């Protein structure tokens, strides 16, 4: 992987040819302001070329490339979706026991006219914000806040919408001391019988227990270039290949695509991303997701509660069920 100092940080390594074209287009635009001659033609030719090149690159992405896109520094985060899809968001803070975890946010908003509970991992942009958000790695108080909000949603019959995007739960001394494992386990138990519809969407990277801790649901969406792994590719490579250098191979081996996950009955729906990924057109992505969420809320809200819970339970029990061979 050639990481040159000239690499455009807004583009991943395999997107660099696109970045080069885009920078040429920008240069021409600058020249264009002095000299209109034929420049517009040239720009539109290059834009066509960039479009075709993007289509070509994105038509055959490897699991590792998709893993990189899922963590793209410009990728929309939970707050972006909240801003672009919902109205009148009231963020609710704290687990009532210890602290407010800013790596996992939640609150009440309207989706059109429907009050909904939103819960999602939150990463930061830029060093300060990243540190503040603990790189999207919640501690026990984050999961306990999530649980509190889920139970609140249950009391007021609000559908719960979760947004999954985390490298994992925080692996630290304080995290362990306060029972990170229990905080995840208890969420799994509570979500399995929460008396309101739960719709989960993997928007970025969904790694391990820290992801599924807000992922038990009636319907699971995955954005096209998101990933859902039992462990990060680096972690898997370290354990099974004895070196994190084999992260691409690990992603490949675990890299069950969302299509395959649909076949396995784990993922219900893959939501297509705009050309070049969600970050190239955040509004477009948000609009696509909104349409699906509205339809899904409508569908699950109409279901009888006992039926919904029975369906959720059967779905959970079906994962890895041993069918007669």
């Amino acid at each position, binding site marked *: 992987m050639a990481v040159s100092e000239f690499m455009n940080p807004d583009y991943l390594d395999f997107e660099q040819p696109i970045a080069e074209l885009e920078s040429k287009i920008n240069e021409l635009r600058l020249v264009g302001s002095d000299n209109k001659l034929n420049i517009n033609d040239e720009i539109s030719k290059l834009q066509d070329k960039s479009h075709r090149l993007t289509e070509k690159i994105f038509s055959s992405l490897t699991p590792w490339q998709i893993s990189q896109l899922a963590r793209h520094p410009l990728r929309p985060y939970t707050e972006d979706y909240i801003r672009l899809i919902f109205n009148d968001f009231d963020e609710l803070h704290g687990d009532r026991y210890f602290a407010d975890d800013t790596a996992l946010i939640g609150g009440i908003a309207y989706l059109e006219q429907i009050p909904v509970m939103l819960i999602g991992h939150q990463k930061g942009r830029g060093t300060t914000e990243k540190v503040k958000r603990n790189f999207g790695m919640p501690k026990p108080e984050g999961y306990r806040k999530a649980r509190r909000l889920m139970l609140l949603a249950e009391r007021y019959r609000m559908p719960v919408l979760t947004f999954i995007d985390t490298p994992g*739960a*925080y*692996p*630290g*001394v304080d*995290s*362990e*001391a*306060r*029972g*990170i*494992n*229990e905080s*995840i*386990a*208890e969420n*799994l*138990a*509570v*979500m*399995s*019988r929460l008396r309101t519809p739960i719709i989960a969407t993997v928007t970025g990277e969904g790694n*391990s*227990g820290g*992801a*599924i*801790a807000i*992922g*038990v649901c009636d319907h699971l969406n995955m954005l096209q270039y998101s990933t*859902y*792994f*039992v*462990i990060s590719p680096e*972690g*898997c490579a370290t*354990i*099974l*290949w*004895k070196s994190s250098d084999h992260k691409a*191979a*690990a992603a490949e*081996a*675990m890299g*069950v695509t969302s299509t395959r*996950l649909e076949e*396995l009955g*784990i993922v219900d729906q893959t939501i297509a991303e705009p050309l070049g990924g969600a970050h190239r057109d955040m509004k477009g992505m948000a609009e696509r997701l909104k349409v699906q969420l509205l339809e899904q809320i409508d569908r699950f809200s109409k279901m009888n509660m006992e039926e919904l819970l029975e369906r959720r*339970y059967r779905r*959970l*029990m079906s*994962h*890895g*069920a*041993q069918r007669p*061979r």
Partner: protein
Amino acid sequence: MSNKWIDKILPKIMKVAPSAKSRSVPEGIWSKCPKCEAVLYAENLRDNLDVCPKCDHHLRISARRRLELFLDADGQSEIGADIEPTDILKFKDLKKYKDRLTAAAKSTGEKDALVVKEGRVNGHGVVVAAFEFGFIGGSMGSVVGEKFMMAVNRCLEKRLPLVCFATSGGARMQEALISLMQMAKTSAALERLKQERLPYFSVLVDPVYGGVSASLAMLGDINIAEPRAYIGFAGQDVIRQTVREKLPEGFQRAEFLLDHGAIDMIVHRHQMKTRISALIGKLLPDARVREGQLLTRNGSIGRSR
């Protein structure tokens, strides 16, 4: 010096292996404590329930041995014995998953990492699940999840309490996301047990990590650990790399968890059977099998509701 017990048993050994050549140690006669490195007479170690008589270290034992130590000798029946793993994803790292499964089956004699039995503990009807750490690190994949669900279902059907001895490195990476889903599956099943007011005892045995610690192992009505067992979510290497500082003394030991309020009690292996059966008696007084009363197939000893 302090090897008095060795002096005592020496003549016995001489009888067992009278012609032991020079210093060769006949296999299966001697064991070494992995903690204090004392050379132990295997039979003594076994009689001491695989706890080092010198330093009290609780040695790792197989799932079958665990069940043998815990359950009453008669009236045992295995649940889900015929369930075998399949390599749905055709996973391959440095080795093929299929080959790892074959090797693990050969070395442990098990088909996967969980053994489940229905039986009795000091007369109380019970379903017991025990993880086999020797089978790919006791990792939880679809077979473990399925058998755990079957254990819960048997409890629901016969109104029995559940005991699980968890020892596991976590979710099984070779089954990728299907393994992760087992965390949700087992936790959801346990929730049913709770709703039916059937007690669940989670016994945490060295070591319990990852997805198993963050699901079924931490959801006991009563969480019990063996002394000094390592219990955590993230491995210590990962934590060290993240925080870049020395980890506190005793970090992630059973005693650390007790201090931090994560478990109810630490119970010595010698007392495990007595303590849990007594707790079952307190939580399910009606389920106590009285003298001469046998478990019936339809579970008529279940509490009347």
